[in-house]
């Protein structure tokens, strides 16, 4: 995918993703930072507290006005996180703030909730933080804005260069896995930014997790820079640099803490939303069917009531299964028995379904209906728990494949069994 870049000439490249047009920065022209997230900005500008957009008399806007007066370029917007520009032998380089402003924070929440999940980027190219010089280290990162924000807010003292690669707005690890955080992209970005004119040394500090996409030896051969793999987490980067670019073993290990697991769950919901909607529709339809509706006696009213009750209960158990599989199982991952996630989901789903059955014992549901509902809840929970294998930093693809081979038949069986029981219980 890289061969169609023209690396010699000044060139604008248009990538159209959804309704967003992104203009790549060019060789020989300073990589002026600009907001490329049109959709984001449109929504955000309606926030009354967003002073950076159009307010005319706040001190904040006068700062960005000065920046604009000096550095404005047709077709570009200066990003709100840029505090000034510095002149280098390779052109003007934007200096970014070390702290998040209100706009950054709102955007972070939206990205975490999945609203702007695939569409949240900063422009690729070279940035500065603090007052770096020719001896300062160069950190390399992805152009996912959350990643960029985490990096800059974790450098509270050092003066560094930050080289942002075009990873299509995806975080370091996923981008490395997908091949966008790659040797080719790194080499290209080093060359386009004119880095060799800016620093005297030949070192690039990469996040350790980018190693999946980068081959250090090839980077050296292709552009003369030595790749040094830094720590996994941005929060260790200052300690790493102060320690003579040496990482403690703990800085090299990926963790998956309670907080890290929970942060992923809203994304799970967004991903599952469509299939959930379809399931809801199907459940309401299936639950609507019962004997009284079709009998010839004049009891349509009680038939409808029964449909409603059954529809209600089926949705409750869908909800329980989803929460159990997509929220509770991930949260309690190390504490649930078994290694396969689908099995963990069955355990958690069974506990929640039985509790729910206990609380619905006053309803008019018969034994078969209750068996159907609990089987259904357990199956849904197992399914969503299994889906979570794709989001963790320790599940091997071979393991996931084995788990799916084992559990998809079980889940399909559970779905069929609950459907049969459910329909049977209505007649």
């Amino acid at each position, binding site marked *: 995918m890289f061969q169609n870049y023209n690396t010699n000439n000044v060139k604008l490249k248009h990538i159209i993703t959804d309704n967003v047009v992104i203009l790549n920065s060019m060789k020989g022209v300073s990589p002026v930072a600009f907001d490329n997230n049109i959709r984001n900005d449109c929504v955000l500008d309606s926030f009354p507290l967003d002073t950076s957009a159009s307010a005319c008399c706040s001190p904040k806007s006068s700062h960005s006005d000065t920046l604009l007066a000096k550095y404005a370029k047709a077709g570009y917007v200066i990003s709100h996180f840029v505090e000034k520009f510095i002149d280098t032998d390779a052109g003007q380089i934007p200096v970014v703030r070390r702290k998040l402003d209100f706009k950054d924070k709102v955007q972070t929440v939206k990205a975490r909730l999945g609203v702007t999940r695939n569409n949240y980027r900063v422009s690729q190219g070279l940035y500065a933080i603090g007052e770096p010089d020719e001896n300062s280290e160069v950190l390399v990162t992805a152009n996912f804005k959350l990643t960029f924000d985490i990096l800059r807010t974790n450098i509270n003292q050092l003066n560094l260069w930050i080289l942002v690669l075009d990873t299509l707005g995806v975080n370091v690890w996923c981008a*490395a*896995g997908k091949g966008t955080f790659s040797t080719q992209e790194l080499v290209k970005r080093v060359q386009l930014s004119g880095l060799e004119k800016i620093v005297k040394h030949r070192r690039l500090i990469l996040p*350790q*997790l980018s*190693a*999946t*996409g*980068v*081959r*250090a*030896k090839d980077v050296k051969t292709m552009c003369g820079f030595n790749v040094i*793999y830094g720590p*996994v987490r941005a929060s260790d980067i200052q300690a790493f640099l102060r320690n003579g670019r040496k*990482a403690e*073993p703990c800085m*090299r*290990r*990926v*963790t*998956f803490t309670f907080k890290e697991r929970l942060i992923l769950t809203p994304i799970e919901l967004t991903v599952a939303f469509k299939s959930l909607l379809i399931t809801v529709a199907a459940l309401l339809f299936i639950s609507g069917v019962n004997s009284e509706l079709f009998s010839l006696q004049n009891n349509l009213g009680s038939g409808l009531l029964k449909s409603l009750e059954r529809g209600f209960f089926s949705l409750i158990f869908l909800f329980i299964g989803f929460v159990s599989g997509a929220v509770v199982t991930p949260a309690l*991952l*190390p504490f649930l028995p078994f*290694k*396969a996630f689908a099995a963990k989901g069955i355990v958690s789903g069974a506990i929640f379904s039985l509790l729910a059955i206990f609380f619905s014992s006053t309803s008019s549901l018969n034994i078969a209906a209750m068996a159907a509902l609990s089987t259904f809840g357990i199956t849904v929970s197992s399914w969503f728990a299994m889906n979570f294998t794709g989001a*963790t*930093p*320790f*599940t*091997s*693809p*071979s*393991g996931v*494949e*084995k*788990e799916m081979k084992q559990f998809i038949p079980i889940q399909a069986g559970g779905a069929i069994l609950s459907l049969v029981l459910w329909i049977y219980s209505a007649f």
Partner: protein
Amino acid sequence: MRNMRYLEDVATLILNKEACVGCSLCTVVCPHGVFEMMDNKAVIVDLDGCMECGACVNNCPVYAIKVTPGVG
């Protein structure tokens, strides 16, 4: 991350000890501490910790490591 374990005996990681030149880069890039250096050679000390991310494979200068995720 010894407390977070996935299925056992599924990782397809293979290390060719003969080929290894002892650069220790695999111990640096692996996010799960799968390798350790012993007598100037890499050894696999925690096979079940391997998530088949390919970082070691990609960076080994002499192509001494292999993973084949999704096969088998």
